[in-house]
């Protein structure tokens, strides 16, 4: 049987030196031979002994995922992304997390992991393709639900507006439920343009955020790439939370822009 000699040699090595990292290769070989339980026991024990070993954690995540232990796999990949100094490895771990979440229908989480993969400089084409699959499953091929997972109770809308005033992603619904995305985007792009012009006259440098308080809601906007990100919340929402939501939406919009 292929690998039998290697398995015997690595087993002997482990028996002599239980702290050896030989368990990683040995577990891989056992897994390849279909001895899944033995591989799992080995990697489970070994990764407990070496909780900061990236190869061990990666293998643990792979075997845990194969056993349907999604949370354990996600935690191990979190550790990989946190411990690794290699951007490509971090991005791979985040993309794998996204894939696992996609498989178990946690689409909002999958989207967030793709943001993290993009932020780590991951393969833009692969991330974009993964995001498209999520949108298809969400029934959202055009990005209208891009920010939905970020909105909590009391949050009204999040919108990404291009420099020409057209909606790029997200949606804006009026209090009565009408979709007013296009009209609001057009008005806001004028506000953004005027703010940029105003900064030239007022010697205040470039503008960073605008917050508008209205009687029934408040909204905030910030420049993102060539356009604007907008969020709106109920008027009772603390301004600090409005700003935090704006930060998260901007981050998502930037990641989406990079991956698109």
């Amino acid at each position, binding site marked *: 049987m292929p690998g039998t000699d290697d398995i015997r040699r690595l087993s002997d090595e482990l028996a002599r030196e239980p702290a050896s990292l030989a368990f990683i290769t040995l577990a891989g070989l056992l897994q390849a031979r279909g001895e899944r339980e033995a591989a799992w026991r080995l990697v489970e024990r070994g990764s407990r002994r070496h909780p900061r070993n990236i190869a061990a954690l990666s293998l643990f995540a792979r075997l845990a995922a194969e056993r349907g232990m999604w949370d354990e796999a996600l935690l191990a990949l979190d550790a990989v992304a946190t411990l690794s100094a290699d951007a490509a490895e971090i991005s791979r771990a985040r993309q794998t997390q996204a894939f696992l979440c996609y498989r178990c229908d946690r689409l909002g989480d999958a989207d967030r992991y793709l943001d993290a993969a993009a932020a780590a400089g991951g393969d833009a084409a692969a991330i974009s393709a993964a995001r498209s699959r999520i949108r298809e499953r969400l029934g959202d091929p055009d990005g209208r639900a891009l920010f939905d997972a970020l909105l909590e109770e009391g949050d*009204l*809308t999040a919108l990404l507006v291009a420099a020409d005033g057209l909606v790029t992603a997200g949606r*804006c619904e*009026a*209090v*009565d439920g*009408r979709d*007013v995305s296009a*009209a*609001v985007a057009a*008005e*806001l792009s*004028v*506000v953004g343009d*005027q*703010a940029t*012009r*105003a*900064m030239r*006259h*007022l*010697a*205040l*440098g*470039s*503008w*960073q*955020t*605008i*917050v*508008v*308080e*209205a*009687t*029934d*809601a*408040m*909204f905030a906007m910030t420049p993102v790439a060539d356009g604007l990100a907008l969020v*709106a919340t109920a*008027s009772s929402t603390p301004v600090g939370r409005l700003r935090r939501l704006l930060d998260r939406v901007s981050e998502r919009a930037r990641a989406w822009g990079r991956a698109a």
Partner: protein
Amino acid sequence: MSASARISPFSATLQVIMRQRGILGALIVDAVDGIPIESTLAVGVDGEAVAALAASLFDHACRASATANYGAGAYFQLQAEHGWLCVTGTSELVLAAVAEPRANVALLRLSMLRAREALVP
């Protein structure tokens, strides 16, 4: 004419705003044409430009709010690299303030929203 007779109805409002830390200018502006009605400005602040831009920004922000059915715009706050532009007002008058980054914008907001009540005819 005595000195007190020359004090406009807006002087006290502007003084309250100007007394706060880091305020570079406070203006009452005609909301329709963006012309300053009364202002107190630090040296180097272009009152005409602030007035025109503040009125226009507030107007467009209010329009966006109305379009989304979010109600009437009450307060506009712009944060820039080197300071703040804060605006409140009514359909006729706008109160604008320009402030340094060190200004306490929470206090400024409260003062301006209180002052807004004095602008309502």
